[in-house]
């Protein structure tokens, strides 16, 4: 057996710098708590923000198309964009911890340290093209996330965490089996060499079965994580149990990380033009969007409605993976970049209106009736919430319209007209449940038990986050062009 040779130059530690920054930040927070406990949460919030800030800087300073950590880390445009979205989403999330009411989870330093560990895991997923490292990143991120959900410490939060954990464990199992099947065929866990071997052996008799089998396992695993129907069962309950900002966070950042993995992995299949996988993704995406919209129609709770809405948005974006065009892949990032602000803004609006105890409904914190007549009690929050809803519905000139238009345009360009029409009509279904909230806020008279309840959780940092989100949502027309070319350049440079 030949001795294993390590070439230290292929370590190229700089490629890992954004991840290492978050890792160090997490450890620093842990150490501070060790030395001097009982510090205020504002310290940890600020430290976490600074860490993420440095990580974004490190991320932006990386030059694309280099490998590191013995060729297991791949820094290309897609991983840069993925990490950027993950870090930006995290930066928007962290200030939401500084609420007026005290909540159990945010008072622990471990929360922030775990949070950074989770970000680290997701960054790892986005930056690696090695199936084992992706798996490690996925598990690091997910395990931390389960804990974060449970730390909200209500009965529903525990239920949410356990549900998510069991489903997540199953998804991890599918991922491992899929990776094993792919390894069995190609003898490699590196996506680039998988592609090469697959191409070579594509025409061998009997090859298609394990190749497609591996892909199907992967689709299930990814489907669980980005909550495609029928693998979505955990989503509404988990979002309901988790705190509102955490639910908003879950609807974006873990999905972005998984989308990057999906782009890398299914990019191989699309390149080889394996029709079954393509069809499977399109069918899943269409079913997801349509069914989730139907289910969202009947929800009584705004948070559950937003959960289903985020499922349907995930389905909408998922189509773009099956198109195999630069525009398609770019549209995923554009969509999630815009969705991040709008959706997190909407969840933050729920958070700002969150009362410590359930006073509106037996079960729900945010039933529709809670927002009845909000325009009379709190006009500006009502208008902002309405802007978020209209943006989610894809009404121009708000930001998500551009995302929707770009995805639809990518679908049309690649000739899938029926899919485009179905997706467009889905938006018309979706507009009903977004309008429902607007109707409650603007067109119904306030309930008796209201008063200042709407503002219960008001704090400056929350208002700041909501303000930023609203600003980004409203002024989209001015930055959409540079954003579009930035994303298209980076995605195009990665060879997609």
């Amino acid at each position, binding site marked *: 057996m030949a001795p294993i040779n390590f070439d230290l130059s292929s370590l190229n530690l700089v490629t890992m710098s954004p991840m290492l920054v978050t890792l160090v930040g997490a450890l620093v927070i842990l150490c501070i708590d060790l030395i001097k406990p009982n510090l205020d949460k504002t310290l940890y919030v600020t430290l976490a923000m600074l860490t993420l800030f440095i990580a974004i800087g490190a991320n932006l300073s990386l030059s694309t198309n280099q490998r590191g950590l013995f060729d297991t880390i791949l820094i290309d445009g897609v991983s840069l964009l993925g990490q950027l979205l993950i870090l930006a989403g995290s930066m928007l999330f962290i200030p939401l911890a500084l609420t007026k009411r005290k909540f159990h989870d945010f008072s622990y330093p471990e929360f922030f340290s775990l949070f950074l560990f989770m970000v680290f895991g997701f960054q790892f997923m986005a930056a690696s093209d090695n199936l084992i490292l992706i798996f490690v990143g996925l598990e690091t991120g997910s395990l931390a996330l389960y804990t974060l959900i449970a730390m909200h410490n209500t009965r529903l939060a525990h239920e949410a965490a356990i549900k998510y954990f069991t489903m997540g464990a199953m998804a991890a199992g599918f991922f491992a089996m899929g990776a094993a099947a792919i390894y069995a065929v190609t003898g490699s866990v590196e996506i680039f060499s998988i592609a090469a071997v697959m191409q070579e052996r594509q025409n061998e008799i009997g090859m298609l079965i394990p190749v497609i089998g591996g892909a199907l396992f992967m689709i299930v695993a990814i489907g669980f994580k980005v909550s495609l129907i029928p693998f979505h069962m955990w989503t509404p309950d988990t979002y309901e149990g988790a705190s509102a900002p955490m639910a908003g966070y879950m609807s974006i950042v873990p999905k972005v990380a998984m989308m990057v993995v999906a782009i890398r992995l299914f990019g191989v299949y699309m390149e080889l033009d394996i029709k079954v996988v393509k069809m499977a993704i399109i069918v899943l995406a269409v079913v997801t969007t349509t069914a989730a919209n139907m289910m969202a129609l009947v929800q009584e709770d705004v948070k559950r409605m937003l959960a289903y809405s985020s499922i349907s948005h995930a389905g909408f974006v998922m189509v773009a993976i099956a198109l195999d065009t630069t525009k398609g892949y770019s549209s995923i990032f554009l969509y999630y970049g815009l969705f991040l602000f709008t959706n997190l803004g909407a969840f933050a609006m729920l958070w700002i209106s969150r009362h410590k105890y359930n006073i509106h409904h037996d079960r729900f914190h945010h039933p529709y009736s809670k927002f009845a007549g909000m325009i009379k009690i709190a006009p500006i929050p009502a208008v902002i919430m309405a802007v978020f809803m209209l943006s989610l519905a894809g009404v121009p000139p708000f930001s998500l319209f551009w995302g929707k*238009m770009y995805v639809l345009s990518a679908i049309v360009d690649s000739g899938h007209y029926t899919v485009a029409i179905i997706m467009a*009509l889905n938006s018309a279904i979706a507009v009903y449940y977004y*309008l429902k909230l607007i109707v409650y806020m603007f067109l119904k008279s306030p309930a008796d038990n209201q008063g200042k309840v709407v503002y219960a959780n008001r704090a400056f940092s929350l208002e700041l986050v909501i303000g930023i989100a609203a600003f980004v949502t409203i002024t989209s027309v001015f930055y959409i*062009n540079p954003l579009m070319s930035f994303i298209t350049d980076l995605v195009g440079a990665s060879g997609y």
Partner: protein
Amino acid sequence: MSNILSVLIFFPLIAGVFGFFVNKNSIRVYGIVVAAAEFLLSLWLWMSFDTTDAGMQFVEKISLIPEFGISYYLGVDGISLFIVILSTLMTLLGIVALSIKEDLKNMIITLLFLEVAMIGVFVSLDVILFYIFWEFSLVPMLYIIGAWGGPKKLYAAIKFFIYTFAGSLVMLVGILYLAYIYHATTGVWSFSLTDWYGLLLPTDVQTILFWAFFLGFAIKVPMFPFHTWLPYAHGQAPTVGSVILAAVLLKMGSYGFVRFSLPLFPDASVAFILPIAILAIIMIIYTAMVAYAQKDMKQVIAYSSISHMGVIILGTFAMNVEGISGSIFQMLSHGIVSGALFMLVGVIYDRRHTKLMSEFGGLAKVMPTYATIFVVMTMASVGLPLTIGFIGEYLSLAGFFKVSPIMTILAGTSIIVGAVYMLSVVKKSFFGPLANPENEKLKDLDSKELWALVPLVAIVIWLGVYPKPVLEPIDNSTKALVQLMHKKAQTDKAKKIILVSKDAKEAK
């Protein structure tokens, strides 16, 4: 002032935002002043408009999203000029006649935002910009119907929104497909309408795109199978909502046909004259009959509104200069007449809080001025010569006569049925004995209502007697449009049907 179109768009927007700072007791004056200034600006646009030039004027083009070929591209020609003026006029008169007391401030600000969207739709030459205004116009209207409407306002508002939204999303897919074809042909992205006019599309592609656009426009018009949202919207909307909806918002659909469907897909438009004419005739006759069966005055006018839109569609698909310019003129006349009729219904509703005709009778005795104006508008609505309604209807039908005399005769029955239901409204409400004692003490029109209605009466008679100043620019631009269509037409059938002028046949 070459950027007057931008001023027209942004002035009400800024004024609407500033409106939040005005005290709610003074908001009515603020609204009237702003809307009057906007109306004067639009008149200025007309004055500085070169009526001999058939092309786009006051063109502004700023690249907005060069990456994707989207630009801020405005322009106005004879086709859109008068619809813009109609929008500003109806907004002004709608605000003048407002009788709403609660949340007046929100109403006026909403109307100003709606005005932005309306003007934006008619002056946009970039299709995405057009789409943005088109969709955005739904939001203020949703609020107007939903907040100030009748008992079933929420149902009506949401039905209105979702119907139109669904149609326009299909249109969006069509827009994106057309942009893709443009990109595939020329290698650059562009959403400029004038660029798209240069595209010669294969007929099968035209067919697909024609129906995609058709769905968006037909729901807005509303054409026959898609018309069910309109009676609800009108029935529940407050007076000013109905006025704007009937006068301007419906015109977006018929304007879309003229601006997009005909010049972009001339062959497909010709190929589908028959099914569309059948829909239009069903729309004309069927809704006229339904109108006759109504007990509610406002519903009569709502259905008559659909019926008249049928004539507009028929004129548009006549594919010749008479028909198209007649249909554009009919858009204006329908806007003024149905707007005025809705205002008149609003007047009686404010006094009696009912719109049922059975409650009235003999009103002419207690409200003579009101009755006079109502009768004038009724005459205009049924198309009596020397009123505005006659010219548009006559030209539209005369245009379509060249396509199919039989169908034109069928459509012509609308004038008879229209006279039947409108005159029966007049008879039931204004003549006969003054049976209901509650009606005895009704006040005649007050100064506010007179200020809103008398200008409309003046326009009805002025343009009925002397339509030339309006008809001429419309005619010019329509000729250019038809020439473009004729040039682009590929099939023989289309070449034959799209008539540039009467002697075009001999010239060949």
